[in-house]
Protein backbone atom coordinates (compact mmCIF):
# COMPACT_ATOMS: atom_id res chain seq x y z
CA UNK A 1 0.00 0.00 0.00
CA UNK A 2 1.50 3.33 -1.03
CA UNK A 3 1.37 6.47 1.06
CA UNK A 4 -1.48 8.18 -0.76
CA UNK A 5 -3.66 5.07 -0.45
CA UNK A 6 -2.88 4.57 3.24
CA UNK A 7 -3.40 8.26 4.10
CA UNK A 8 -6.94 8.63 2.82
CA UNK A 9 -8.24 12.16 2.28
CA UNK A 10 -11.85 11.02 2.65
CA UNK A 11 -13.00 8.64 5.39
CA UNK A 12 -14.95 5.67 4.01
CA UNK A 13 -17.16 4.27 6.75
CA UNK A 14 -17.83 0.91 5.10
CA UNK A 15 -14.19 0.27 4.26
CA UNK A 16 -12.95 1.22 7.70
CA UNK A 17 -15.63 -0.78 9.53
CA UNK A 18 -14.51 -3.79 7.51
CA UNK A 19 -11.08 -3.48 9.10
CA UNK A 20 -12.57 -4.49 12.45
CA UNK A 21 -13.69 -7.81 11.00
CA UNK A 22 -10.30 -8.31 9.40
CA UNK A 23 -8.64 -7.63 12.77
CA UNK A 24 -10.32 -10.73 14.17
CA UNK A 25 -8.58 -12.84 11.52
CA UNK A 26 -5.30 -10.96 11.86
CA UNK A 27 -2.27 -13.21 12.04
CA UNK A 28 -0.78 -11.60 15.12
CA UNK A 29 -2.38 -13.01 18.27
CA UNK A 30 -1.58 -13.15 21.94
CA UNK A 31 1.20 -15.63 22.70
CA UNK A 32 2.79 -15.05 19.28
CA UNK A 33 5.87 -13.02 18.46
CA UNK A 34 5.49 -9.30 17.80
CA UNK A 35 7.34 -7.90 14.79
CA UNK A 36 10.01 -5.24 15.18
CA UNK A 37 10.24 -2.07 13.14
CA UNK A 38 12.12 1.24 13.15
CA UNK A 39 10.15 4.28 14.22
CA UNK A 40 10.90 7.98 14.62
CA UNK A 41 10.85 9.46 18.12
CA UNK A 42 8.84 12.70 17.89
CA UNK A 43 10.86 14.55 20.52
CA UNK A 44 14.39 13.55 19.53
CA UNK A 45 13.81 12.90 15.80
CA UNK A 46 16.01 9.81 16.28
CA UNK A 47 15.16 6.43 14.81
CA UNK A 48 14.45 3.83 17.48
CA UNK A 49 13.55 0.14 17.31
CA UNK A 50 10.17 -1.02 18.52
CA UNK A 51 11.82 -4.10 20.07
CA UNK A 52 13.84 -1.88 22.41
CA UNK A 53 10.57 -0.84 24.04
CA UNK A 54 9.95 -4.42 25.27
CA UNK A 55 13.54 -5.57 25.75
CA UNK A 56 13.53 -5.20 29.53
CA UNK A 57 9.88 -5.49 30.43
CA UNK A 58 6.38 -4.89 29.18
CA UNK A 59 5.38 -2.17 26.75
CA UNK A 60 1.87 -0.79 26.29
CA UNK A 61 1.52 0.51 22.74
CA UNK A 62 -1.49 2.69 21.94
CA UNK A 63 -2.01 3.38 18.24
CA UNK A 64 -3.81 6.55 17.26
CA UNK A 65 -3.85 10.03 15.80
CA UNK A 66 -5.15 13.52 16.56
CA UNK A 67 -8.33 12.90 14.59
Amino acid at each position, binding site marked *: MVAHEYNYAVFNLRAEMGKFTEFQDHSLHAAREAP*DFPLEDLDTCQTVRLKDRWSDG*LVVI*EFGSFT
Partner: protein
Amino acid sequence: MEQMAARYAHRSVRSVFLYTREAHPGESYRHHTSMEDKRHHARAFQAEFGIKRQILLDDLEGTVHRAYGMLPNMTWIIGPDAVIHYKAAWTDPVDIEDALRCSLDALERRMKDKLLPYHSERLKWRGRDDDKFRARLAKNGPQAVTDFYGS
Protein backbone atom coordinates in the same frame (compact mmCIF):
# COMPACT_ATOMS: atom_id res chain seq x y z
CA MET B 1 -3.77 6.23 29.53
CA GLU B 2 -1.36 8.93 30.72
CA GLN B 3 -2.30 8.32 34.32
CA MET B 4 -1.92 4.58 33.94
CA ALA B 5 1.47 5.03 32.28
CA ALA B 6 2.64 7.08 35.26
CA ARG B 7 1.32 4.51 37.74
CA TYR B 8 3.26 1.64 36.18
CA ALA B 9 6.43 3.37 35.07
CA HIS B 10 8.31 2.14 38.14
CA ARG B 11 7.43 -1.50 37.41
CA SER B 12 9.42 -1.84 34.19
CA VAL B 13 6.40 -0.95 32.08
CA ARG B 14 6.93 1.42 29.18
CA SER B 15 3.95 3.13 27.60
CA VAL B 16 4.21 4.60 24.16
CA PHE B 17 1.86 6.25 21.67
CA LEU B 18 2.39 5.14 18.09
CA TYR B 19 1.19 7.86 15.71
CA THR B 20 -0.64 6.59 12.63
CA ARG B 21 -2.50 8.18 9.73
CA GLU B 22 -5.32 10.59 10.55
CA ALA B 23 -8.42 8.48 11.20
CA HIS B 24 -10.90 11.28 10.45
CA PRO B 25 -9.19 13.94 8.36
CA GLY B 26 -10.93 17.26 7.86
CA GLU B 27 -10.20 20.84 6.90
CA SER B 28 -8.38 21.58 10.16
CA TYR B 29 -6.35 18.36 10.23
CA ARG B 30 -5.90 16.96 6.77
CA HIS B 31 -4.45 13.61 5.73
CA HIS B 32 -0.65 13.45 5.77
CA THR B 33 1.17 14.02 2.51
CA SER B 34 4.60 14.22 4.13
CA MET B 35 6.37 13.23 7.34
CA GLU B 36 6.44 16.91 8.27
CA ASP B 37 2.61 16.88 8.18
CA LYS B 38 2.69 13.88 10.52
CA ARG B 39 5.18 15.53 12.90
CA HIS B 40 3.09 18.72 12.95
CA HIS B 41 -0.10 16.84 13.82
CA ALA B 42 1.67 14.66 16.38
CA ARG B 43 3.05 17.76 18.14
CA ALA B 44 -0.41 19.31 18.16
CA PHE B 45 -1.79 16.08 19.64
CA GLN B 46 0.97 16.03 22.27
CA ALA B 47 0.21 19.60 23.29
CA GLU B 48 -3.60 19.36 23.17
CA PHE B 49 -3.80 16.23 25.31
CA GLY B 50 -0.71 16.78 27.48
CA ILE B 51 0.95 13.56 26.35
CA LYS B 52 3.96 12.66 28.47
CA ARG B 53 4.42 9.22 26.94
CA GLN B 54 6.97 8.74 24.22
CA ILE B 55 5.36 9.38 20.84
CA LEU B 56 6.71 7.26 17.99
CA LEU B 57 5.91 8.10 14.39
CA ASP B 58 5.13 5.38 11.89
CA ASP B 59 6.41 5.99 8.37
CA LEU B 60 4.21 7.66 5.79
CA GLU B 61 3.16 4.28 4.34
CA GLY B 62 1.91 3.12 7.74
CA THR B 63 4.19 0.07 7.79
CA VAL B 64 3.85 -0.64 11.50
CA HIS B 65 0.18 0.29 11.65
CA ARG B 66 -0.59 -2.13 8.82
CA ALA B 67 1.48 -4.91 10.37
CA TYR B 68 -0.43 -4.62 13.62
CA GLY B 69 -3.94 -4.49 12.17
CA MET B 70 -4.56 -0.94 10.93
CA LEU B 71 -7.36 -0.02 13.35
CA PRO B 72 -7.62 3.63 14.45
CA ASN B 73 -7.09 3.22 18.21
CA MET B 74 -5.78 -0.24 19.13
CA THR B 75 -3.71 -1.07 22.15
CA TRP B 76 -1.21 -3.89 22.35
CA ILE B 77 0.86 -5.11 25.28
CA ILE B 78 4.10 -6.83 24.37
CA GLY B 79 6.41 -8.52 26.81
CA PRO B 80 10.01 -9.69 26.95
CA ASP B 81 11.13 -11.92 24.07
CA ALA B 82 8.58 -10.08 21.90
CA VAL B 83 5.65 -12.17 23.16
CA ILE B 84 2.27 -10.56 22.58
CA HIS B 85 0.40 -10.43 25.89
CA TYR B 86 -2.69 -8.44 24.85
CA LYS B 87 -4.26 -6.94 21.77
CA ALA B 88 -7.49 -4.97 21.62
CA ALA B 89 -9.39 -3.32 18.79
CA TRP B 90 -10.05 -0.27 20.98
CA THR B 91 -8.27 1.41 23.86
CA ASP B 92 -9.99 0.92 27.19
CA PRO B 93 -7.70 1.94 30.07
CA VAL B 94 -9.63 -0.19 32.58
CA ASP B 95 -9.32 -3.32 30.50
CA ILE B 96 -5.69 -2.58 29.67
CA GLU B 97 -4.77 -2.10 33.31
CA ASP B 98 -6.46 -5.39 34.17
CA ALA B 99 -4.39 -7.15 31.51
CA LEU B 100 -1.24 -5.36 32.61
CA ARG B 101 -1.67 -6.45 36.24
CA CYS B 102 -2.24 -10.02 35.09
CA SER B 103 0.90 -10.03 32.97
CA LEU B 104 3.05 -8.38 35.61
CA ASP B 105 1.91 -10.88 38.20
CA ALA B 106 2.58 -13.83 35.89
CA LEU B 107 6.02 -12.56 34.88
CA GLU B 108 6.99 -12.12 38.52
CA ARG B 109 5.74 -15.55 39.56
CA ARG B 110 6.42 -17.67 36.48
CA MET B 111 9.69 -19.23 37.58
CA LYS B 112 8.82 -19.77 41.24
CA ASP B 113 5.30 -21.04 40.56
CA LYS B 114 6.17 -22.85 37.30
CA LEU B 115 3.59 -20.96 35.26
CA LEU B 116 2.99 -21.70 31.59
CA PRO B 117 1.28 -19.24 29.20
CA TYR B 118 -1.75 -20.06 27.07
CA HIS B 119 -3.82 -18.19 24.52
CA SER B 120 -7.34 -16.95 25.34
CA GLU B 121 -9.81 -14.53 23.76
CA ARG B 122 -12.77 -12.54 24.98
CA LEU B 123 -15.46 -10.19 23.68
CA LYS B 124 -15.42 -6.69 25.16
CA TRP B 125 -17.88 -3.78 25.06
CA ARG B 126 -17.45 -0.03 24.84
CA GLY B 127 -19.88 2.83 25.39
CA ARG B 128 -21.19 5.10 22.63
CA ASP B 129 -21.50 8.85 22.97
CA ASP B 130 -22.56 10.12 19.55
CA ASP B 131 -22.79 13.76 20.66
CA LYS B 132 -19.25 13.74 21.99
CA PHE B 133 -17.95 11.89 18.94
CA ARG B 134 -19.70 14.27 16.54
CA ALA B 135 -18.30 17.27 18.41
CA ARG B 136 -14.82 15.75 18.20
CA LEU B 137 -15.20 15.22 14.44
CA ALA B 138 -16.38 18.83 14.05
CA LYS B 139 -13.06 20.01 15.52
CA ASN B 140 -11.31 18.20 12.66
CA GLY B 141 -13.41 20.12 10.16
CA PRO B 142 -16.88 19.89 8.54
CA GLN B 143 -15.67 17.30 6.06
CA ALA B 144 -14.85 14.88 8.88
CA VAL B 145 -18.49 15.09 10.02
CA THR B 146 -20.04 14.62 6.59
CA ASP B 147 -17.62 11.79 5.71
CA PHE B 148 -18.84 9.85 8.73
CA TYR B 149 -22.51 10.85 9.01
CA GLY B 150 -23.28 11.84 5.43
CA SER B 151 -24.54 15.23 4.28
